[in-house]
Each structure stands twice: as C-alpha cells, then as structure tokens.
C-alpha cells in the first residue's frame, strides 16, 4: 500500500470523526432551538449569545459527570454498548461521498474514505450492526424499561432493515451498481435525471425507514420518554450516555447525506454549486427530522410493526416488481 494513500485516508478519517462529532453536538443545539421556536418557546438562551455555546456546556457536563456502572448490570456488555452505537455510525460513514472530489495544492482529494464498489450494502450492513448498541445496552442494564426498549429496538431495526433493503433494491436495479459514486454519476444530468422521478415510491419508503433506523419521532418508541423513561439509556450517565447521543445524531446526519445521494442527485456534476446543493439537501432532511418531532405523535409498537409488514414491505416488493417489468 502506498504511504501517501495511507496518510490521506487517516487524515480523512480524523476530519470526518471531528466534523461529525462536533456536528452531532451542534445538532442538539439546532434541535432544541427549532423545537422551541415551533412550540413558541425560546430554547437555550443563557450560555453565549442566543445560547450557541450550550453545546459546550453540555459537553463539559457530560465529560465531567461520574461514570456510574450500577450494581446488577453486566458490566463489560454495559460498558461496550454505547461504543458500538457511536462506532458503527462513524464506520458506516466510510462509504459516503460527502462532497465531490476537488483539487487542493495540486493534489486531487476524494472526500470519501473508501470508494468500495458495494458501498450501499456496506452502509446498510454496518447500520444493521448498530442495532447491537441499544440491544446490548438495554439487556445488560438490569432495568425493565431498558429491557423493553431493547426488545422494541430489535423488533424495529430488524423490520425496517427489510424495508430499507427492499426499497433501495429497485434503484440499485436501475443503476446496476452498489457504489454511491455510481449512483451520483447516474443522476449527474441535472434535476430531470434524479432518481426520485423514476422511483418516487422507493424514495418515500426509504425516507420512512430512515426515521425507524435513526429512531426519530414518529418511530421514537425505542427510547420513548413518556412510556419507558429513556429506554436503553435509562441506566447510563455521563459520557457513555453521551456516546449514545453522538451515535444517534451522527446517524441522523449520515442518513441525511444518504437520501440525497441516492435519490436527489447527490452533488450532481461535481461543481462547487453541486457541493453546496448536496449540503443544502442534507440540511433539509436533517431539518425534517426535527420538524416531524415538533409536529407528529409517536405510533404504538404494534402500529409500527403493522405499518412495516402489512403496508411498507408489500409496497416495496410491488415497486421492485413494477421496476423489473418496466426494465424488461
């Protein structure tokens, strides 16, 4: 392996880690502000101007808080679970092209850590492994609410992995590749060539499943405050709980990158404007996660299962069938 390639990759990994850890923290600020405005409140106001330094205050609090491992928990599993959540979120990001390639100091940079030809499969697989965070954390916690949350989490993740996979199968059939770069090239011809026009059903199904994958509000029953306290996070404190949080928000950002790249043209032809457009699209999908949280109620677990197996999965299969027939 070439030395330059190794150094470049390590630098890219560090940048992605730092940027998205910080974004996960700042994302909490945005969430609190936007939710507050939608509910006629002010949100954080006291730390820094308009409360922008609230993230720093939260970070200091989380880092300096005592790391409690309760008596009856299975300590090794309990300790590793948050790391799984945060780590899988970042590992999955390795195959996402965040920006088009650009040249800096005469050196061409591809803002993707590993351009593997099975990018989508890899991302879906790693995100599936992310299930082990809530599952192990909840089961090891010696807390009945955490256990309930783990059970719900396993059910939801496994069910919606099916929808995610099936919904994305039809676009994959059209593009004929599993690489996100190829997806982007396929849609590089401007708005008319976006995947969303030919695969609107797949787009909506994937979007719905993204809410389940990240555990956001309509499908927030894994850690529903008003039913099961904080779910798998009930027994956690300090930085371990913070890792769950970072994982959740990083996942939201990565999914918000995935949806535009898969369906909405990604960064287009790779120009500067295209890069800005990708960031804009990503921001919209992130904003939508917060928007629904202010507007929509949570569904019951049985409704969630019904929605997945009785509606979304048949629709996804039908979508694949229709796509296949049309392609023939």
């Amino acid at each position, binding site marked *: 392996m070439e030395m330059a390639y190794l150094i470049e990759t390590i630098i890219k990994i560090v940048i992605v880690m730092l940027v998205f850890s910080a974004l996960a923290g700042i994302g909490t600020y945005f969430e609190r502000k*936007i939710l507050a*405005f*939608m509910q*006629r409140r002010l949100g954080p*106001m006291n730390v820094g101007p308009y409360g922008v330094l609230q993230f720093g205050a939260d970070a200091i609090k989380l880092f300096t808080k005592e790391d409690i491992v309760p008596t009856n928990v299975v300590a090794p599993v309990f300790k590793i679970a948050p790391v799984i959540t945060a780590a899988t979120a970042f590992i999955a990001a390795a195959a996402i092209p965040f920006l088009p390639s650009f040249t800096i100091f005469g050196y061409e940079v591809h803002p993707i850590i590993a351009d593997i030809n099975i990018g989508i499969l890899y991302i879906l697989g790693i995100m599936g492994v992310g299930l082990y965070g809530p599952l192990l954390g909840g089961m090891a916690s010696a807390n009945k609410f955490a256990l309930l949350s783990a059970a719900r989490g396993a059910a939801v993740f496994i069910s919606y992995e099916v929808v995610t996979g099936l919904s994305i199968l039809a676009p994959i059939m059209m593009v004929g590749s599993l690489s996100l770069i190829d997806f982007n090239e396929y849609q590089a011809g401007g708005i008319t060539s976006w995947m969303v026009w030919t695969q609107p059903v797949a787009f909506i199904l994937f979007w719905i499943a993204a809410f389940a994958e990240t555990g956001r509000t309509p499908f927030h029953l894994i850690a529903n405050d008003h039913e099961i306290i904080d779910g798998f996070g009930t027994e956690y404190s300090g930085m371990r709980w913070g890792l769950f949080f970072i994982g959740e928000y990083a996942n939201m950002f990565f999914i918000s990158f995935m949806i535009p790249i898969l369906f909405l043209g990604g960064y287009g032809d790779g120009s500067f404007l295209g890069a800005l457009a990708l960031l804009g699209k990503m921001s919209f999908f992130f904003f939508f996660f917060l*928007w629904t949280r202010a*507007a929509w109620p949570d569904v019951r677990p049985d409704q969630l299962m019904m929605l997945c197996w009785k509606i979304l999965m048949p629709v996804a299969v039908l979508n694949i069938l229709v796509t296949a027939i049309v392609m023939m």
Partner: protein
Amino acid sequence: MKDEQFNNRNVSNEYFLVDIEDYPTEPWDKFKRVVKRTFRLELFVGLWVVMREFFKFEIHTVSYPEEKMPIGPRYRAIHEMKRLWESDTERCIGCGLCEKICVANCIRIETKRDENSRKEVSEYSINLGRCIYCGFCAEVCPELAITHGGRYENASEQREHFTMYEDMLTPLDTMKVGNQLEFEGFGAITPHEDERVKKTPLAY
C-alpha cells in the same frame, strides 16, 4: 408581557361539540377509514401548523429572572409590617393575635412595657420555613399591621429561615416619600376587573 388573554375566562359561544364518528366494525369500513386517513394528508396539516408558528415567532417565554409576570393584589408572599400614615410609627400594638392564630406555629412575638407604659414589640420573628402563607395573621390583625407582600423569591440554603421585625417593617425613607403599599387583602379584586366581569342577567 400581557396577561389579559390568559385572564379572560368568559365562556364564549365559540365552543362546539366535536362530531366523532363511531369506530368501524366491518372490514370494508375499516379499509375505507385507512384509505381516507392515508390520503387526507393530515400529517402535513401538523407539519404546516408548527411551521407557521416557527415563522410567526410569537414567543411566549417569560425569561424569568429578567422578566416577571405581574402578580395579583391578593397574592400572599413574605409578610410586611406597615407603619401609620399619620405618624410613621409602627402599627403593631403587640396584641399577639397573630401568634395565637398561626396554624403553623411559625410566629413568635415578645412584648415589653416601654417608658410610657405602653406595650411595645421587643422580639418578633416568622419562621418562613414553617409558614404556610395561609394569611390568617394578616386577617386577624386588628390594626392592619402585619400584611402579605409580593416578595415570593424566598429560596434559602436551609429550611429554617427567619424574617425579623425590622426586615418586615416599612423603611422610614419609603414612608417619608409615601410609597408604602397597602395590602388589599382577601377579596380584593384584580385591577380593571369591572370591565371583565359580566353583569348578572335579570332574566334568562
């Protein structure tokens, strides 16, 4: 911060009964309900409502230590000792009724004869940790001397936290300017209540 809209308790004619349909029992009716709910796009109504509020930016937050909601004249917070308007002397005659009636036993009063053989308060304290702010002391006081004030921020580091006679007494300089506020007491109505109260109808 205006609070008029919160205080308006007039029952208007805008109330109406919501028409709630019965739950469907037949499978076909259930299916129709699902279709209706799916395509009526009610979820987007919810999205629109919060987005409207987002842009309207009507914030109702009271940023508390800087802003405070007005409190009513009947509010019973930390006690005050009033002075006589004519002579600026203390109104309290040391009768001890407040100590007697106090249901929480939080008032302690000691009196002595002064040089004119009149009764004078020598010690007077209220344990605010015990006080339940029932207002009996203010009600029983024959001289309107002990009253309730509007100071409600009485957090302290310990349960037992006392207020003494001198702290409650209206300061002399406030008295000289004539700024002593009278406690309107029980049954006092909020300002401008006349405009809000509906007249009793003579016939239905």
